[in-house]
């Protein structure tokens, strides 16, 4: 076979793989609609519910894509979100201002996130190592904040205070605004390209003059912004916060990113929209299983099998002789 043919076939295969996550989402949506119609469920409410349940994970995971593209990961995202939400709620308790609450959520999330990357630079450690240490610190901080607030084991923002912004319109606005920033930074600025290069081949990237620390700081700052917005949206959805708040977010983010077709190793094949596709796919899958009234153990098993399949397929795609292009 001549080179042109191989190249053509490879291109076609790549194209199919790149569309696979979106196709999976479409198939899941079709399945969801089929079940919904068959079981006569409340479709408008369900669609609203799917958006409600996906939006926080999409926001946080889209920010995290910048970290994953570098070939790194942040295990402390959920704990960061919990601390930021608690600080935001405490600020609201003292100022009764939603704007101040939003500012506090974002500021604390960005500071925590940046601390991880700066510490990694100072001590010359892999970033994920500092995020592991940060996870322990943040879990302790959660207990300290709750204790310091003196309101038992919870910190609450009055439900009436956030009811006006607990709407799909507001959440979509926040989501789209943040997505626009991320897509711009990832696809239209040097940042995205440099991160892909660094994630794909750190040695070549460093020899080309790219500074890993600077890129990590930018990535963590953008991820922190997402975590802060996620914390704010969490308060609007459920204004009673406890030490368990956002407990599943860290894992949901990882699963969503992988489900959306993002290679776990980062690099050139990273896609900014992976988080959106993955989070929506996961929520649709959960809804389908709920409609089938599967017990949660079986649901988890099904998700685990699908997760393995997706990772298997995506890894299979990445081990070819032709470089990504």
């Amino acid at each position: 076979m001549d080179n042109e043919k191989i190249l053509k076939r490879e291109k076609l295969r790549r194209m199919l793989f790149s569309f696979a996550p979106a196709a999976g989402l479409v198939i899941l949506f079709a399945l969801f609609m089929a079940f919904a119609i068959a079981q006569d469920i409340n479709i408008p409410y369900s669609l609203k519910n799917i958006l409600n349940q996906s939006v926080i994970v999409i926001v946080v995971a889209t920010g995290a894509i910048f970290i994953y593209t570098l070939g790194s990961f942040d295990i402390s995202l959920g704990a960061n979100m919990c601390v930021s939400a608690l600080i935001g709620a405490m600020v609201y308790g003292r100022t009764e201002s939603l704007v101040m609450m939003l500012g506090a959520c974002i500021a604390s999330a960005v500071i925590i996130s940046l601390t991880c990357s700066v510490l990694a630079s100072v001590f010359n450690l892999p970033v994920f190592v500092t995020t592991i240490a940060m996870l322990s610190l943040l879990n302790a901080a959660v207990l300290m904040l709750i204790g310091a607030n003196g309101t038992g084991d919870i910190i609450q923002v009055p439900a009436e205070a956030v009811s006006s912004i607990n709407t799909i319109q507001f959440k979509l606005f926040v989501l789209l605004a943040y997505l626009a920033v991320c897509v711009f930074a990832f696809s239209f600025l040097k940042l995205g390209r440099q991160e892909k290069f660094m994630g794909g081949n750190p040695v070549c990237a460093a020899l080309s003059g790219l500074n890993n620390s600077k890129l990590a700081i930018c990535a963590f700052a953008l991820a922190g912004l997402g975590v802060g917005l996620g914390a704010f949206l969490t308060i609007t959805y459920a204004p009673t916060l406890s030490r368990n708040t956002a407990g599943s977010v860290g894992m949901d983010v990882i699963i969503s990113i992988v489900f959306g077709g993002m290679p776990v190793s980062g690099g050139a094949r990273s896609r900014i929209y992976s988080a959106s596709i993955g989070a929506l796919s996961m929520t649709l899958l959960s809804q389908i299983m709920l409609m089938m009234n599967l017990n949660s153990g079986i649901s988890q098993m099904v998700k685990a099998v699908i997760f393995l399949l997706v990772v298997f397929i995506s890894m299979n795609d990445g081990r070819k002789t032709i470089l990504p292009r």
Partner: protein
Amino acid sequence: MKSFRKILVLALSFVLTFTLAACSGGGSSEGGSSASEGGIDDSKNVKIGVLVADATGAEALAFRSYYENYIAKQYNVTFMYSDELTDAAAEASAIDNFIANNCKAIISFASSDRPAQIRKCAENKVYYAVATGTLSDEEYAEFKDNEYYVGAIGPDLATEFQAGYDMAKFYLDQGKTKFAIFGGATPYYTDMHIYRTAGMLVAMCEAGGGTYNGASDFGSMIGKIYEMNCQLEPAKIGSVEVVSYIGGYDFDDAWFGKLAEAANNPNVEVLLTVGSGLDTFAAFKQESQQLATVDSYTSDAVAAMKSGVLNYLAGKYSASIGPIFMATLSAVQGKPIRTANGEALALSQGYWVATSAEEAEKFYAVDSSTEDPAYTRAMLDTLFGASYDDFAKFVSAYSFEEIQNLKK
């Protein structure tokens, strides 16, 4: 290698497909017989969502078994269970899921944010009931007139206090004076555990003729515990001594170390636990010591009582959630059970207390039966559309003997 991968992908796909196919056939029957003599309409399937904070504990599994293996087979209802809910956001999501799936009512075992749960259900015209718990006085005042709030049936805080008090008194009456206490979720400000601990301490104050950091009665003891930020300490209470106190559910080496240290202390005669007695002290308990707990009647608990590992068990019985189911079904089918003023139910239920293996075995035999449980359909049917007084009378007769008498 390539073909191996293909086979692996195919195998995983088959596993997935068959799992889904096998499980999707498990729904409850649609249609069925028409209205029974008691007025219950069995012709339409009623979907009820169940919010759970614990999906794997023995007590949670026993409750689930009663609903799925008895109630769902007796009535034309389908129970949809949430995942294990650990925070208010997860509860809100689960309620949204149930509403989207046309659940007509929600029975809640989760309590991160009950007011938010009730508001969401009421906004969406879905009935809401609390199983095995109660609302605080302030919360009840806020929601008692809401037509979608069915009510709460379960041990109220006075009952929890009494459970702790009775447990400690049982051993104090035997002349025991050296205790170790496991306070469970007391450090997390969980009222249920705080009140049980307070009950134990008050009983010790009465028997020992002393005070616990200056507190000796119900009101002052609760106040003292909150004043100490729910972080209790060992103390001498007159002639009685709390030799050791452990709180929280850290499940790390340090936590297990503290439990072992308490049980290995030769001075400790009795290990009192507000819950999870088998998970905490059972592995470390000395033969000469007594172990008491609040839990549920499971095969493990009965075996522990038989072997002498556990000596006192105040347990919820799984059928205790039968009356709240019937109150919920009644409301869904247009016959809500309300007080004379139209207010929601707020009824207390207590525990079955076993102090011997024979008693525990007797209770467990009834509690674990899926053919003839403590509350059968015939008994529950009498509650459909009942007056508040009749309903309250039924619920208040919760002791094992009273329930057996009701059956006759």
